[in-house]
Each structure stands twice: as structure tokens, then as C-alpha cells.
């Protein structure tokens, strides 16, 4: 398992989440009047930053 798992792989997730347009090209459901298309992408800012932070702390030991 260790050979195949690298924390950096987590960083591929935002690419899939934001570049596959069929995931989010829709108006409903809306949140606070904001169509899905827009709040979905705002959500990914947070997800992506969180994943990056997770990877940062996970691999920090080897990075001086």
C-alpha cells in the first residue's frame, strides 16, 4: 500500500471536481438565490485549499 499511496495524489481531486463541467452546469439547487453552477465552484475553493493544507502537513517532515 505504501508504495502506491502518495499524499500528493489528493491534489488531483480539485482538477476533476472543477474541470468536469457536467458535474455542475445546472441552476438548481440554489443557495441564497445563487445558482448551483456558481456556489459549487465557490465550494471548491475551500475544498482545494483544505486538501492542499492536508498534503502540506502530511509531507512536511520530508521538506526542509
Amino acid at each position, binding site marked *: 500500500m505504501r508504495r502506491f499511496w502518495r499524499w500528493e495524489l489528493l491534489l488531483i481531486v480539485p482538477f476533476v471536481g472543477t474541470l468536469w463541467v457536467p458535474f455542475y452546469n445546472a441552476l438548481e439547487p440554489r443557495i441564497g438565490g445563487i445558482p448551483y453552477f456558481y456556489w459549487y*465552484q465557490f465550494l471548491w475553493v475551500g475544498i482545494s485549499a483544505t486538501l492542499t493544507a492536508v498534503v502540506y502537513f502530511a509531507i512536511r517532515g520530508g521538506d526542509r
Partner: protein
Amino acid sequence: MNGINGPALAVFTALFLLVTVLGFFAGRWRRADLHQLDEWGLGGRRFGTIVTWFLLGGDLYTAYTFIAVPALVFGQGAIGFFAMPYTIIAYPFVFMVMPRMWSVSHRHGYITAADFVRGRFDSPALALAVAATGILATMPYIALQLVGIQVVLGAMGIQGSGWMAELPLVGAFVILAAYTYQSGLRAPALIAVVKDAIIYVTVLAAVMIIPAKLGGYSAIFAAVPPAKLLLTPPSAGTLGQFSAYATLAFGSALALFLYPHSMTGVLSSSGRGVIRRNSAMLPAYSFLLGLIALLGYMAVAAKVDKVPAFLGGFQQYGPNFAVPALFLHLFPSWFAGFAFAAIAIGALVPAAIMSIAAANLFTRNIYKEFLRPSCAGKEESTVAKVASLVVKFGALAFIVLVPQKYAIQLQLLGGVWILQTFPAVVVGLYTRRLHRWGLLAGWITGMTLGTWMARALSFKANVYPLAIGGLVIPGYTALWALLANFTVAIVVSAALNGAGVAQGKDATSAEDYGG
């Protein structure tokens, strides 16, 4: 739009003066010998997490964010929102790739991407290609910043006819040129802090007050034609806007940190950890960028293009006038002036960083490499200072020669070119399997095809509808060109490696890249 807007101009001028004074003072900050290129052009490589955050953020928070993106959203709807995924995925990419670039550059004293390519592939020709591309691609990006300044000055009533029309632009340009020349990278780094403060005030006021005045986000989105709110889905024979959206985002993200100025931001940081921490922190900018993009819809909802006072502005600046008009329409004059100062200073800082970076490239990789190998110290930094002026004039030329309805096309055009250095610079960080002549052949192919496609679109659009079989795939020209670039690079490299053509000597070794 008739006559000068006094209160706005007063606030604008006060802030602008403050920043100018700071710019000249910056030369004394962390004082060092500014006649050394390392000091003038990289701030002595001592910038920590915070300064780097402001500096890299300055690269993103530009007229691109404030003028160009909302203008596209205003004029064309959802497709303009591609800037959002673009700035989301740029950072994971930076997190992975740029620490390697930092390590190898630190170890060998490289200050540009072309330096690295020169050492890695032992090829002055390939390094020249990378350097020339960086300088060329920077010009339209600076041009975008100048357009941003021009639009806000126009919004305050500073415009004339004939040659007078260019005066304010020239004024801003001279100030920028002067303090860049004087203080080098320290100037934009120090100003970036002030700039961000007034930008945050502007953005927060805009995203809280404007929606409230327009009846909330529901009302804003309801005012936009529904067809504009989503991307055109694929239909028989075409992928519609889906492929355009994804490729614009992906191509822009890959291109962002190949630009000389982003590379400067990365290399002037004090360590790998600084870069990684910033990759996790910089998305804060992306969030605000998304909110600013929505100003485009707010301008639609406020119907600013129907307000008689703004007709002249829209006539002269097109959709790029949407955000200035919105501010003038909904804010008191003095605050509009504050916001315009934020936009103008937000354009000047990156323009300064960009011209410094392009100047570094010219000095190190063209002047020193090919014209005056003995040049060093003071001569080197003087050449860089002059080169930074020349690049800015190149940017002016782009404004005059290819007037754009949408300013964002300037940045996308730069992306078409800079992305062609990806195989040598980024792939080169990981492997030398691509042969130096293969990379050069790929670069020539990519540059030619990219420029040809851009020309076919009259340099005014950057989504090229590629027909494969019966399917039309509209996509960002930069990526189509990069595909051709890679294909040629791989095929030629395989042939040359098979024939045993010399690879050249690698000046770097595996451990130079760290982790």
C-alpha cells in the same frame, strides 16, 4: 461621463501619490546594493511567507480580476466564470511543481526559467527560445493592466481627443517606469501591502453593499437572462461551451506560473516551505476573484449600460467599462475614487513586477548570453533597468495595434505563447528524456500553430473550434498548440535519442531538486 469627477479624482490622486512615494522609498527597505541584479530583480531572495503572499497575490489581483473578468461575465455570461476554476487548480499545481524549481534554482543561482533550461539541457538555443517567449508573452499581459488604468481614468472624466487621450495613460506609465527603475522588486513588494489593504476594503464594500442595493443575489441572478447563467451544453456535432470552459481554465492554470513574473515571485521567496504554505493560503484570493467576477452580473442587474451618463464610456471602452460604471452608479463619488485607486494601483504593481521579470530574462539570457558575456554587476542591472522600459513600450504597442473589445483576450493571448515553454520548463524539472532539439522543434511547432490560430481569430478571441472527425471541439488555442508541441517534441526526441544524437551535459543532479 461629462467633465471631471472632482471628489473621485481627489481621493484617487491622494492614494496614488501615497503609493508613488512608497515606491521610491522602497529602495531603502532592507537596504542593499541595487546595482546587483539579484538585489534589484529578486529583492535579495529574502522574502518570507507573508511578503511572498502579497507578491504572488499581486500577480493575480490585477486589472484582470477587476476589469477583464467581470467584463466577460457582463458581456457573455457563464463562460467568463472560467477564471474561478482556473485560479482554484493553479495552486495544487504550484504546490507540486514549484518547490522543485525553487530548489534547483537556489542550488545553481538561477533567477529565470531560461537559466534553468540552459543548465538542464546544455542548450543556449532552447534557453533563448524560453527567454524570448517569456518577454513576448509578458507584453500583452502588461497591456491588459494599462487598459485597466485607462478605463478607470476615463471613468473619472480624464479623457481627451486625439493625442491628448493618451496623456493620462502616459502619465501613469511614466510613474510606474520611474519607481521600478529606481527601486526594483522592492517597490512592488512594499506597495503590494498597501494595495491589498485598499483592495480588500473595496471588494468587501462592493460585495456587501452592491447586492444589498440591488435586492440581494436572488434579484441579481434573476435579472440575468437564464441562457447566460449556464454554459451551452454539447449538442449534435459540437461540445458547445463545455470544452471551451474547461480548457480555458486548465490552460490558464498551467500557464500562470510559467510567466516570468510568477517565476520571480516564486524564486524571490526564502524557501520551499514558503511556496507550499502559500499554495494553501492563496485560494483566499480565488474566493474574492469569484465574488468580483459576479460584479459583471450586478452590472447587468443595475442596467448600467442603459444609463445615459455611461453611454459614452461603454462606447469608448466596451464591456470593460461595466465595473467602473457600476461603482459610479451605486457609490458616492469619493468612494468610487477610492475603488478606482484600488484598481489602478492593482494594475500598476503587477505591471511593475512583470516588466522587472521580463527585464531579468533579457539581461541574463539574451544580453549576457549572446551579446556581452563579460557583463556583470552594475552593467547587468543597468541593462535590466533599460530592458524593463522597453518591455513596457511593447505593451503600449499591443494596446495601439490590437484594440480589444474584451481586455481578457490580451491575457489569454499571452497564455498561448507562454504555455509553449511548458515541456522544457515543467517536464524538464522531472525528466531529461525529451531531447533538447526535440523540445526546440516542439516549441517552434507550438508557437507557430498558436500564433496561426490566434491570427485566424484576428487576435480577438482565443477559443478555436477544432474539428476532429465529425465533432467540433471548441478549446483554448494555448492547449491545442501545446498538444502539437508535445507531439512533435516526443516524436523528434525519440528519433534523436534512437540515433544517439548528443544530449548535452546536465548541470544539475537529481538531489538538487529536493524531495
